[in-house]
């Protein structure tokens, strides 16, 4: 199975074996943590020994995010070349310098992602255990998306190079090429199981008979894989303990709840049965288990709103998107996510910072792409609808 550090317990997705119980002080988080095969992140005194440099590096990136001034400047651009010029004056610099003149928004998006992935790879190349495994866990989410993309493409006989180009660079792994050569469903299943780092997730959620990636079912497969991934990530964070466990459980709970609500809302009007829907809800989050039971029985948006209303923050989100405003639930979720991640970004001595950094950078890329789209379509008044200020 494609993983690393096989003998110890922290290797990739095999960490389903962790027991997420009480916090035990077994010395793995202290000064001599390196003597164990799988150490934990340090506490207040000893965190800097292993991960201090990277934490300071990431937190020094705070001023590199685009601020309100930059967004105001971008909002008055007339064309994508103006956007390029304004971005060149921020920390983005000359990242678009080598692109031919009629710019497309997809180019801007690809270049932003490339820049972000370079930074992430810098962090990853300097990381030691257990931070390295933690960063890999962040990447598994993108890997799931890539694998689904490649599977659907392979079944429709798409061109390999084109498929791999459309994959997210953060979720690339060495053996993804072998997936494109499969031609039958059972071959695909075996390859995903054996060749990809997310093999254990597919083992957990479905057998070969259930694996049926045609148009409707591919989303079901994606959601089930993501459910297994979130639960595994949560278990790993609980194992790491300390500040990491505390903050990551907050962030992952929101992610799980968001997915539960979105799955429910998207399933209205499709043929997805309620039982099938219930198997896709992750078993973590503030809505688990009480709210999830109500969500599983919901028939329309009003019942969904009722199901989540016992959690104050989600009730506020639904209030914000009343019929008067133009904001959609997705926008409200993005805003709340930025708020959570922003407060996680300022914490010390924990790994939630790295996760928050990835999410905030994603949001910034979404912002820049939205601005570019609005500018290129001449609808500059809509820019401030969806741009969420990060810092």
């Amino acid at each position: 199975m494609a993983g690393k550090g096989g003998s110890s317990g922290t290797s990739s997705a095999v960490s389903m074996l962790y027991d997420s119980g009480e916090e035990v002080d077994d010395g793995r988080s202290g000064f001599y943590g390196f003597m164990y095969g799988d150490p934990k992140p340090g506490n207040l005194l000893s965190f800097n020994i292993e991960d201090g440099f990277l934490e300071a590096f990431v937190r020094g990136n705070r001023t590199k995010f685009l601020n309100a001034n930059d967004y105001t400047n971008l909002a008055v651009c007339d064309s994508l070349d103006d956007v390029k010029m304004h971005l060149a004056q921020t920390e983005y610099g000359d990242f678009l310098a080598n692109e031919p003149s009629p710019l497309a928004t997809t180019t801007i998006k690809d270049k932003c992602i490339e820049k972000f992935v370079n930074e992430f790879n810098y962090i990853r190349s300097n990381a030691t255990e257990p931070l390295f495994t933690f960063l890999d866990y962040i990447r598994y989410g993108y890997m799931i998306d890539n694998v689904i993309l490649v599977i659907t493409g392979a079944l429709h006989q798409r061109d390999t190079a084109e498929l791999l180009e459309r994959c997210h660079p953060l979720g690339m792994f060495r053996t993804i090429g072998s997936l494109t050569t499969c031609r039958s469903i059972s071959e695909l299943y075996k390859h995903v199981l054996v060749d990809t780092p997310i093999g254990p997730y597919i083992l957990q959620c479905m057998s070969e008979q259930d694996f049926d990636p045609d148009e409707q079912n591919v989303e079901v497969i994606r959601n089930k894989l993501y459910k297994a991934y979130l639960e595994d990530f949560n278990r790993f964070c609980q194992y790491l303990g300390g500040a990491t466990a505390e903050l990551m459980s907050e962030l992952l709970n929101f992610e799980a709840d968001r997915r539960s609500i979105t799955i429910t809302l998207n399933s209205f009007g499709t043929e997805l049965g309620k039982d099938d829907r219930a198997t896709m809800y992750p078993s973590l989050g503030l809505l688990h288990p009480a709210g999830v039971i109500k969500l599983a029985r919901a028939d329309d948006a009003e019942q969904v709103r009722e199901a989540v209303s016992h959690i104050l923050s989600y009730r506020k989100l639904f209030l914000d998107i009343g019929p008067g405003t133009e904001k959609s639930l997705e926008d409200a979720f993005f805003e709340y996510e930025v708020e959570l991640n922003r407060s996680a970004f300022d914490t010390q001595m924990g790994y939630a910072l790295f996760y928050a950094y990835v999410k905030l950078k994603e949001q910034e890329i979404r912002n820049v792409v939205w601005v570019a789209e609005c500018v290129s379509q001449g609808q500059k008044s809509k820019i401030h609808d969806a741009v969420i200020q990060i810092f």
Partner: protein
Amino acid sequence: MGNFIVTILMESPYLWACTGLALCIGLSVVGSSWGIWTIGTATLGVSIHKGRLETRNLVSILFCEALSIYGIIVSIIMTTKAQTQACWPIAANDYMAGYQMFSAGLITGFCNMLAGFTLGIVGKGIAVSTAAVATLFVKLLIVLIFGEVLGLYGMIVSLIETGNASFTSCA
């Protein structure tokens, strides 16, 4: 077992004195180095972005260094006292001198060690937060000064105590 310990410990004040000397410089350096590695890794991390500006965090490391200087001052004074000739039978005054040297060393050692931990955590926070908001730096240095003073208190008490300690010379 208890008899054994009592025998060893009651045997000689010179053991107490030299243990104090070792703890003095040892624990001071533990604290100082702990502070330096905590601040140093953070300084390296933020210096990647703004190189010359962020190397002002070396001032924090200077504060940590001062702690080990306190330790070595007290140690050197203690070594001059510990250059005594050992005699038998041990004079009564020597027992007191031994205990005084031990306590002086322990005081300085622990004060500097814990001050070092403090300076490390605070200095790291300063390095990272001033990377985001530049105007905070000078004001946050005051926290470092207060941390530094904790080590100074230990040194003052130890110096007074070693001043009192004196081994009687052999007849």
